[in-house]
């Protein structure tokens, strides 16, 4: 059997099982409708949860961006007073932040996509629940045993599949959001620790080391060259080189795993 058919059979079997409870056919209608309303409530809550996570990540991106801007300013100040070591430290931290910001931006895009999916699911379910309510009353009004049984079975099977689908979409959105919340928690701790606040307070603390590891050295060198250029207009050669492909003190052996030559 093909993958499509296997998946269809398995999915339908599960969806029908979920609504197997009531015995009187008309009770099935009411039971199903009640389940639909519950699911609709859950989807609405799911949309709100994902939106909350998205806003939290937005806030974090803004905070980290402010820190990065501050570090940039500190680096400039340090260069102005000929403290290249401090400027280097500031830029190293800023480089680490840039990676965190990029990571958060990816998370933000993912959360936004999940949110949009759930909103669409909510609209779909809302329309179906309303249609089901109308059909439920019609079936009840025209109830003649055998005929109604068929109509009920069709209606319940159709809505059951939809509910199974939306239930699964909810579960997947929740799983993804939970993963991102764990990572967002780590960023919150980092921000709350104050480790990003003051460069002069605790140079070389744990956070700084971590950020150091994250940061790419060449970014720092490039930024340093740029800053020197800004502060030393008397050295046009340095400016020219920093705009080009100059790679100061790059260790050749470190590039062994990348055979392609840099042009």
């Amino acid at each position: 059997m093909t993958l499509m058919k296997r998946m269809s059979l398995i999915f339908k079997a599960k969806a029908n099982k979920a609504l197997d409870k009531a015995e009187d056919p008309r009770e099935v209608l009411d039971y199903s409708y009640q389940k639909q309303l519950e699911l609709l409530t859950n989807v609405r809550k799911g949309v709100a949860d994902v939106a909350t996570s998205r806003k939290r990540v937005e806030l974090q991106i803004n905070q980290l961006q402010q820190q990065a801007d501050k570090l940039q300013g500190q680096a400039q100040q340090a260069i102005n007073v000929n403290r290249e070591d401090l400027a280097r430290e500031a830029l190293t931290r800023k480089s680490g932040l840039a990676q965190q910001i990029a990571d958060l931006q990816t998370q933000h895009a993912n959360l936004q996509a999940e949110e949009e999916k759930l909103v669409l699911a909510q609209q779909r379910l809302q329309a179906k629940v309303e249609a089901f309510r109308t059909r439920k009353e019609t079936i009840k009004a025209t109830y003649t045993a055998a005929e109604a049984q068929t109509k009920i079975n069709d209606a319940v099977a159709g809505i059951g599949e939809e509910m199974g689908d939306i239930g699964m979409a909810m579960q997947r959105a929740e799983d993804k959001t939970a993963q991102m919340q764990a990572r967002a928690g780590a960023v919150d701790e980092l921000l709350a620790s104050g480790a990003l606040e003051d460069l002069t307070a605790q140079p070389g603390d744990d956070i700084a080391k971590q950020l150091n590891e994250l940061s790419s050295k060449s970014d720092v060198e490039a930024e340093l060259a740029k800053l020197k250029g800004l502060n030393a207009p008397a050295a046009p050669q340095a400016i020219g080189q920093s705009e080009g492909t100059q790679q100061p003190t790059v260790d050749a052996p470190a590039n062994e795993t990348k055979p392609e030559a840099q042009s």
Partner: protein
Amino acid sequence: MIVRILSEGQYDLADTALDRLNELDTAVEAAVAAGDETAFRAALAALLDGVRSVGTPHADDDFVESDLILPPADAALEEVRELLADDGLIPG
């Protein structure tokens, strides 16, 4: 013929589209069997795009069972395996 893409909704398709979909489905199935994530991604995307391009979205306020149900667009290979393995059709 009605085809559901999970997390996305139902599409109405002409029955004549089935042959083409079966071809695309075979590629997905082969990738799942081989455990090839890259091939799986490409094959699943092709299958779902096929459904979207030849089908039209089914009315939101109607509820009927689908003839075929397909995995969500962002499903991982492992996730599809689990979906299929739930009733033991695929061992392990």
